[in-house]
């Protein structure tokens, strides 16, 4: 099918949807939404519409990024903007629908913002919401706004325009365009995408492959999942453009098995593409031939590394090998192979659609464009965000994220997952780009951002990340296999109160060995969390080692809870919450904790409204 014909069909459907004479109800049905109860909300919507005899359409959308408000619903009456409602319960949903649809009360108190050109009094528009104002959404341009299962929605919003344009260019011109945009790989290492493509194109043999790396293994990162769930075509289009540029006829998407919904969406998207001639022997009527296969990962973090990933696709143990030869020369089954990350491909389709100079207009001198982050941990507003490169960390954490959870003081932020580092709050002036983050000892990584507050112990965090990398080390390189093990043992000792001051030097020493002696990124970056916490939070290590104290109240042998006799009002809440029966006291009199009974589970500390429970 010709692009113009498809486009006309898609626009017709989109216009119909835009001018729907009935109310339209959109529900966020991504994994986060479902986990927060979106299925119940959908049922409640259907039931309410039936009971009240209301005519309205419902539509599933992906993640809009405001995960802290899940489950979410957006309601649009004809001629009005969408009004987004969050933190829904089935009861609340019923009330909103009845009041807004029958009595025209928009229930402003439960609303988050409006989406669309028009305004509704008393509700801030999308663009002015503090979480969204600093954001620039390129990779996530359609997430939460379209039905990911409907290819027409994607096309009507400019989808596959980039591919159509690319097919009219010579492959070398496409590569030039991507080079000019300044796009760097968004999977973590930040290698220039256009250059990578050029290498693959230059080593052109009879066959070559293109792979989309959707093995998002970093704990704390979920951008790729949200993108695949919310707008799969944006990624697939980028993949087609890449394949055309390097001359690949076959592509693979390697997705984590932990992302069943993303896989479901991809299967549907590929079927639609097949139907519209976007895959197969003649893509959009051109001479370009291309097919895509989905490969499910099997739960090995190291398979995010490109050579390990290829071994896994070939059906072998996912172990990295040394480079060179680079995949561009000898990759999958020995053929030239190009691997890009999910977000990179989504940017590619936008770049080809809007032009390289448009894209290069965002970001800094050296780091162009935008980057998605999954903001999680101890901040008020957790979610999926996309910001221009060069934004300051504090803007992300305090403006977008809304500062510490329950007003608690933020201690630092971990960027780049277990390969990254902890950046302390006093350095939040730092700009977010590849160069500054590296200078601070961390990395951009794939984009996980986990915020830590006063209740997070940094030694425990280092121990946590080492537990992860130690378990995920494939075992090929000795420094990584045994080094991470030794480092973990030392950190465990420190957390148990058995650390010595010599341990810190030993950790530094081992860190260097593991970094230098490992073949792949896993080992080379595994010591980062230890090194950065040692650099920025040395006092916490010293507290553990010298004073045998964990002020954050995490390392159990190094603290105990006590009730402040002045602050306790004897409400008895902690007595009811305590599963160990360790708290006693007369009503309205200060209570006591029996240290021999206390299991240090922390429930009393979390639940006390007077904040009378202290960590000592």
């Amino acid at each position, binding site marked *: 099918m010709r692009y113009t014909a498809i486009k006309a069909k898609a626009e017709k459907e989109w216009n119909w949807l835009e001018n729907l004479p009935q109310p339209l109800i959109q529900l966020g049905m991504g994994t986060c939404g479902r*986990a*927060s109860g979106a299925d119940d909300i959908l049922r409640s919507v259907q039931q309410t519409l039936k009971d009240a005899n209301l005519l309205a359409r419902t539509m599933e959308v992906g993640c809009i990024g405001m995960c802290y408000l*899940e489950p979410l619903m957006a309601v649009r009456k004809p001629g009005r903007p969408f009004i987004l409602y969050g933190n829904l319960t089935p009861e609340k949903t019923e009330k909103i629908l009845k009041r807004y649809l029958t009595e025209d009360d928009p229930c402003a108190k439960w609303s988050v913002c409006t989406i669309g050109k028009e305004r509704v009094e008393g509700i801030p528009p999308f663009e002015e919401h503090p979480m969204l104002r600093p954001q620039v959404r390129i990779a996530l341009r359609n997430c939460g706004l379209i039905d990911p299962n409907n290819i027409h929605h994607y096309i009507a919003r400019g989808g596959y325009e980039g591919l159509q344009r690319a097919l009219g260019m010579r492959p070398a011109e496409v590569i030039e365009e991507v080079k000019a945009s300044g796009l760097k790989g968004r999977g973590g290492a930040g290698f220039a995408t256009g250059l990578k493509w050029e290498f693959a194109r230059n080593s052109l043999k009879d066959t070559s492959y293109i792979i989309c790396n959707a093995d998002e293994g970093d704990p*704390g990162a979920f951008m790729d999942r949200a993108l695949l769930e919310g707008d799969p075509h944006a990624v697939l289009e980028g993949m087609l453009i890449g394949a055309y540029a390097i001359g690949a006829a076959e592509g693979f998407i390697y997705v984590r*098995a932990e992302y069943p919904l993303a896989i479901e969406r991809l299967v549907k998207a590929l079927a639609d593409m097949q139907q519209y001639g976007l895959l197969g022997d003649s893509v959009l009527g051109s001479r370009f031939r291309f097919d895509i296969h989905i490969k499910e990962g099997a739960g090995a973090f190291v398979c995010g590394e490109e050579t390990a990933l290829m071994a896994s696709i070939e059906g072998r143990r996912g172990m990295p090998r040394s480079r060179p030869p680079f995949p561009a020369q000898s990759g999958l089954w020995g053929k030239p192979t190009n691997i890009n990350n999910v977000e990179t491909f989504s940017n590619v389709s936008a770049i080809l659609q809007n032009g390289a100079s448009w894209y290069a207009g965002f970001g800094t001198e050296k780091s162009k464009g935008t980057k998605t982050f*999954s903001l999680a941990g101890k901040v008020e507003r*957790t979610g999926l965000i996309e910001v221009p490169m060069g934004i300051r960390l504090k803007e992300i954490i305090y403006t977008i994220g809304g500062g510490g959870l329950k007003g608690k003081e933020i201690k630092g932020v971990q960027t780049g997952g277990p390969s990254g580092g902890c950046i302390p709050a006093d350095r939040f002036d730092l700009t977010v780009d590849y160069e500054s983050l590296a200078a601070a000892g961390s990395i951009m990584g794939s984009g996980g951002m986990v915020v830590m507050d006063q209740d997070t112990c940094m030694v425990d965090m280092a121990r*946590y990340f080492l537990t992860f990398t130690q378990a995920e080390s494939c075992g090929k390189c000795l420094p990584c296999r045994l080094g991470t093990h030794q480092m973990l043992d030392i950190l465990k000792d420190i957390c148990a109160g058995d650390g010595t001051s010599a341990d810190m030097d030993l950790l530094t020493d081992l860190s260097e060995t593991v970094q230098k002696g490992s073949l792949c990124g896993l080992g080379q970056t595994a010591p980062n969390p230890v090194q950065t916490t040692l650099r920025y939070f040395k006092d916490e290590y010293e507290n553990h080692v010298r004073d045998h104290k964990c002020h954050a109240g995490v390392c159990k042998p190094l603290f105990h809870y006590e009730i402040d006799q002045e602050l306790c009002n004897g409400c008895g809440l902690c007595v009811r919450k305590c599963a160990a029966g360790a708290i006693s006291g007369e009503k309205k009199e200060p209570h006591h904790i029996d240290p021999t009974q206390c299991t240090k589970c922390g429930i009393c500390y979390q639940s006390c409204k007077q904040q009378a429970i202290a960590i000592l």
Partner: protein
Amino acid sequence: MEQVQEAIHAESQIFPQVLIMEDEMSVAKGLELVLTDEGYIVDLATTGRSALESFSQKAFDLLIADLRLPDIDGIEVIKKVKNSRPETEVIVVTGYSTVSSAVEAMKLGATDYLSKPFTDDEFMSAVRVALHEKKAFHTGAAAAAVAEAPLPVLEPLSEDLQQAQEIMTQVRQAFSGSREELIPMLQKVQNHLGYIPESALEEIARFTRTPAAAVYGIATFYEQFRLHPVGRHIVKVCRGTACHVKGAERILNEIETRFGMSPGQTSDDRLFTLETVACFGSCAIAPVVVVDDSVKGRMNPTKTRDVMEGMDHDNEDPDQQ
């Protein structure tokens, strides 16, 4: 250590070594082809002496013995082999069958006696029977070892094995048997059974013409695969960074206290298996617990306990009916 023993044990079982003692090269090559197609490792010996030589160097699971050889009598070879390596199974193949030679061979412990010509199927079924007996020998030994040090894992149920066979039939239809399909095949079996039984592992090895040891290596490399049965419900606690920061450890402690299982273990009533997962990628609603396939966000120890106890209840009713 148990795992290592298990691995060695599994390897020798899944990966049978066969010696064909046959002076007619055409027959020997034909049998070799049939056996290697099925995933066996095959050595050839054209004389009795070279067969004995091979046995002095390594152990074989099965000896395919011709009786008429250019040097020594086949019966003599079988005697010596059975003497030095009694666990070796023997199948006699001969063109000059006589009742007396058959009786003699059987007395020496051969499991079958095939007279030429025979079909591939007849041959293979004899091989399977012989190796099955050998397996019984092994499992007997293994059972004794288990009695000494019980493994903290569940044994497969017999209906599982039957199901495994059915699934493998589906697998054989759905896949072509190429190497890169190995992981998807393992995934398919596990999706149906919750784990990959040894028989399916062997079958996949044969289907993909990959040594069973390599298949075992792959299955143990990837976190996803389980080689032992699991409880009726699988509870996965996410240990991602966000979940860790928000108290995933406390949830694990609660499950351990209430249900008496730590990660990787199954409750005594086979109702739950507890696992941890590196990250589910639902960090914004941490901590996350996944019960079977339903993702539950913003959990805490009490909520987790309630969910699990609720499931406990759900399942009692149908059982009683």
